[in-house]
């Protein structure tokens, strides 16, 4: 099981802030995860339809979409950041 956490409009569109999921074996990278999640329902599709706008963090560190999810306990998905 991996813990997924969502923020900002990704959280609003999916309709929850976090959940635990068993990921299929073919989900190896952050990009694979986004593609897999869009198959889980309309709300996921709506949140993640533009993958290039989605940022991913594994264990609270930024990763690129082609990076592996090896050792991931917590994965965050969120839009580009607008702090400061």
């Amino acid at each position, binding site marked *: 099981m991996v813990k997924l956490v969502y*923020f900002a409009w990704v959280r609003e569109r999916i309709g929850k802030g976090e959940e635990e999921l068993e990921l299929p074996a073919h989900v190896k990278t952050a990009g694979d995860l986004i593609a897999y999640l869009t198959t889980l329902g309309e709300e996921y599709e709506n949140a993640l339809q533009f993958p290039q706008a989605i940022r991913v963090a594994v264990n609270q560190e*930024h990763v690129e979409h082609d990076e592996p999810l090896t050792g991931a306990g917590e994965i965050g998905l969120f839009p580009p*950041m*607008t*702090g*400061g």
Partner: protein
Amino acid sequence: MTCPAPTIRVQHQDFDLSTESRALTDGRADIGAVVSFVGLCRDEAGTLSALELEHYPGMAEAEIRRIGEQAIARFDLLGLTAIHRFGKIAPGEQIVLVIATAPHRQAAFDGANFMMDYLKTSAPFWKKEHRKDGTAGDWVSAKDADDHARDKWR
């Protein structure tokens, strides 16, 4: 020489620039320059009742700390403080503080500038607008100009 550790805080409550600045400089004679930046909640159109800042608890602090450690090492800073607020913040209120200290001004200017450029594009915070008329506001969009500002340090 060991690098100083940055002081990083992610909090809802307000901060005081002079208190934080003095905490970096009190009792020291080696600091020649203090550069500070304070970012405020801005309402250009006069329609905003507040910005709501959402953050990724844990990662927000960790990411600002990673950026701060890079800034200290790269510019040989003597000290660095970064405070970022979350929650509802009204126009005119303070959102973010960065203070960099160094022996000379250039390193302090560069350190604070680097810190803000990376903080804006890498620290996990998101701003949502709340409007005066009570209608639902939008999430603030990320700006390409912020990415370009960061990329000049690469």
